[in-house]
């Protein structure tokens, strides 16, 4: 029998297949960005005199080895911590804080600038409990800053921070930065960790 030439396969659709693959990978690839709680460690300094802080300006949070929470010498559930911390920070006991909405209880903190949260944990404390407490305390600060920012600028603090990091945000970033700074000064994050 005579040998017949094999018919040529049409390669035109190959491009479509390759494009399909390309688009599939483009769509499914998620370059995930990590997120988490940013903290700053205190630098090591030798022989620094600890500042004298009034007892009423310290909000002690103690997390023991069984992940139980002791706040201001009372046992507390994690879900109540945010509220308690907010009340402590926003108390404004000495009346110098015009923007505080707290109860002005003379037994609690003087003003947000003086209020310090002290967190102590034990070696046996689990990491998840520690993160949960850290998260709630940061949330307390963020809540207060949000309320303050809402009152001053009509948008929340978290939103403003997001705008600052957004490259496409059209507004004036220098002013935004100054606004954020102002709020950060009004509610400074004073979270101290006891070294063990």
């Amino acid at each position, binding site marked *: 029998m005579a040998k017949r030439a094999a018919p040529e396969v049409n390669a035109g659709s190959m491009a479509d297949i390759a494009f399909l693959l390309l688009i599939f990978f483009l769509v499914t690839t998620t370059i995930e960005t990590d997120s988490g709680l940013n903290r700053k*460690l205190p630098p090591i300094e030798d022989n620094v005199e600890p500042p004298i802080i009034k007892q009423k300006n310290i909000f002690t949070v103690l997390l023991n080895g069984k992940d139980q929470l002791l706040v201001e010498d009372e046992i507390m559930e994690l879900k109540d911590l945010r509220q308690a911390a907010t009340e402590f920070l926003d108390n404004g006991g000495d009346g110098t804080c015009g923007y505080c909405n707290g109860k002005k209880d003379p037994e609690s903190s003087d003003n947000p600038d003086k209020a310090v949260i002290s967190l102590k944990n034990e070696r046996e404390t689990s990491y*998840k409990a520690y993160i949960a407490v850290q998260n709630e305390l940061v949330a307390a600060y963020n809540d207060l800053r949000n309320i303050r920012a809402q009152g001053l600028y009509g948008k929340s603090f978290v939103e403003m921070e997001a705008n600052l990091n957004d490259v496409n945000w059209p507004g004036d970033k220098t002013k935004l930065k100054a606004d954020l700074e102002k709020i950060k000064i009004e509610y400074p994050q004073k979270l101290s960790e006891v070294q063990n």
Partner: protein
Amino acid sequence: MAKFKKKQGGEMPAISTASLPDIVFMLLFFFMVATVMRQNTLKIENNLPFADQVEKLDKKDLVMYIYAGKPSANYRNYGTETRIQLNDDFADVNDIAAFIAAERASKREELIPFLTTALKVDKDANMGLIGDIKQELRKVNALKINYTTKKGSVMDNN
């Protein structure tokens, strides 16, 4: 008047599309090669805890990762105590200083103050080890840290 000859089949010759796949494959390979998805091979369990007050950790080249957790099933001969992992191997608390120094040396000098240390720690780890890590970081003056978490409610942690 000249008489025009009618063209035979006045269509354009078809452009060969046979090389189109090559072009597209070239694109595909370029993206496959250029996309960096380097992740350390974890030898530990790394189940991150949940938190909702998170900030994004962008600029990946400015992040140093420290992992900690129990050795995973294949590495049980290292025990079941929480261990630190740096790069691709188990490490000791004392190795952190050298690790930070090496990471710093590999970055441009002007970027060093912006380096962040991301702690990717298993949620069942205990704080003793974390405290030790933090103390080591303070010694080498790597003060910016980030507790890497998953986004979610803290109440889901248990």
